[in-house]
């Protein structure tokens, strides 16, 4: 193979990986900096469930519409790299059967685009009319004559539809949302230094006081964190 082509392929692959790979978030000083934290076998884990308001501030994508976002951080033990995998996570709603595994950025972005597309504006136009009539008119149906007076009419018109495309509903939007969710997501793979990032669970919790708990399979052990 031509060496120039080799260099081009290596650069392209490196750039692709650097661009599309999750970078996550900046881990806090220690796992204790997160509302929920624990330590097992020298590995410290911290987690924080984002409120709807926090999710709105941290994401341009409207993640509140489809899922719950948990920021997770791992602090591996010295000289003991840790294999981080999204498959090892489960989020449960306490005292219920509801549980979910994390969804990928691609799935979440597609879901958000679909919801944005299906949104329709409904506009209500109330109407009210006042009519004054003078003189006498003959009503052929009833055979009576009606005198002058004031007539009032009321009504409501309902318009359904949009004048243009909905916000964040195009394919370019989906790509942008996917990029955002992916780049802010928890990086998977071997971690020898602290890593942090967001994990997206497709649960739309309608209960206000629902308590969630995050489970993570750390080797043989199972880590359970109650998320306040």
């Amino acid at each position, binding site marked *: 193979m031509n060496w*120039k*082509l080799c*260099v*081009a392929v290596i*650069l*392209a692959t490196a*750039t*692709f990986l*650097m*661009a*599309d790979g999750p970078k996550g978030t900046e881990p806090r000083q220690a796992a204790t900096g997160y509302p929920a934290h624990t330590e097992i076998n020298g590995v410290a884990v911290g987690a924080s469930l984002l409120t709807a308001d926090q999710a709105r501030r941290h994401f*341009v*994508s409207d993640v509140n519409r489809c899922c719950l976002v948990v920021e997770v951080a791992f602090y591996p033990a010295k000289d003991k790299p840790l294999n981080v995998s999204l498959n090892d996570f489960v989020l449960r709603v306490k005292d219920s059967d509801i549980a979910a595994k994390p969804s990928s950025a691609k799935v979440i972005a597609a879901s958000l685009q679909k919801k944005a597309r299906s949104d329709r504006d409904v506009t209500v136009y109330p109407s009210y009319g006042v009519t004054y009539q003078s003189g006498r008119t003959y009503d052929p149906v009833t055979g009576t004559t009606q005198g002058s007076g004031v007539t009032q009419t009321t009504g409501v018109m309902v318009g359904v539809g949009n004048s*243009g*495309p*909905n*916000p*964040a*509903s*195009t394919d*370019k*939007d989906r*790509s*942008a*949302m996917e*990029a*955002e969710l992916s*780049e802010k997501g928890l990086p998977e793979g071997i971690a020898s230094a602290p890593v942090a990032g967001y994990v997206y669970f497709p649960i739309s919790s309608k209960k206000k006081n629902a308590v969630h708990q995050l489970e993570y399979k750390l080797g043989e052990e199972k880590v359970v964190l109650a998320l306040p």
Partner: protein
Amino acid sequence: MRILGLSLGFLFLASFLPAYRATAQATPDSAASVTPQTSPASQIQATAQESSNSKKEKDDSSDGGHKLHLRLGGISLGAGYAHFSGPAFYPYGPYDFYPFGWDYSAFWYPWGPYPFFAPSYFAYGSAKGEVRLTAEPKTAEVYLDQAYAGTADKLKDIWLEPGAYDLSVAASGHQAYHRRIYVLSGKSLKINATLLAEVKPGETKDKP
């Protein structure tokens, strides 16, 4: 990409030209031979006849004496050379794989090292998203995906295609501001970039 071209062309002009029929074919001798044997009246007749004959000959020559001539009208010779090494059109180079897309959106600034955006690039569009930028100092330079966009005071409202961008705001004597932004159509993103003054080595903030 280099293109070297050489062209050579010939131009032929085709024209119909009236052929010169040899006057010898018109037999002027026949008229001369008649003249001495005729009376003045007949001379006049003969002269008249001669003139009518020569007229007839002229008519004959115009009717049936066309020839096709090809004439060399001109020669053109040309050479051309084109060279372009811009990132957008260089098909096999590493720039084509640049992930953030400035090479599709920005133009190379021809007199400097930075690519720049066309003025209409940030104009409003129904399929675009808005970025409201507030920066301090106001004359700070704004870069989008490493391409120069303008100064902050003139970029308060930027309309961008949906996507992910690297936004940088820089001013001399200040620490640069960098942020990855995500733009969605129909949505507005507010950014406040207040640049902190650069602290030189050995210099402390708390001066008496």
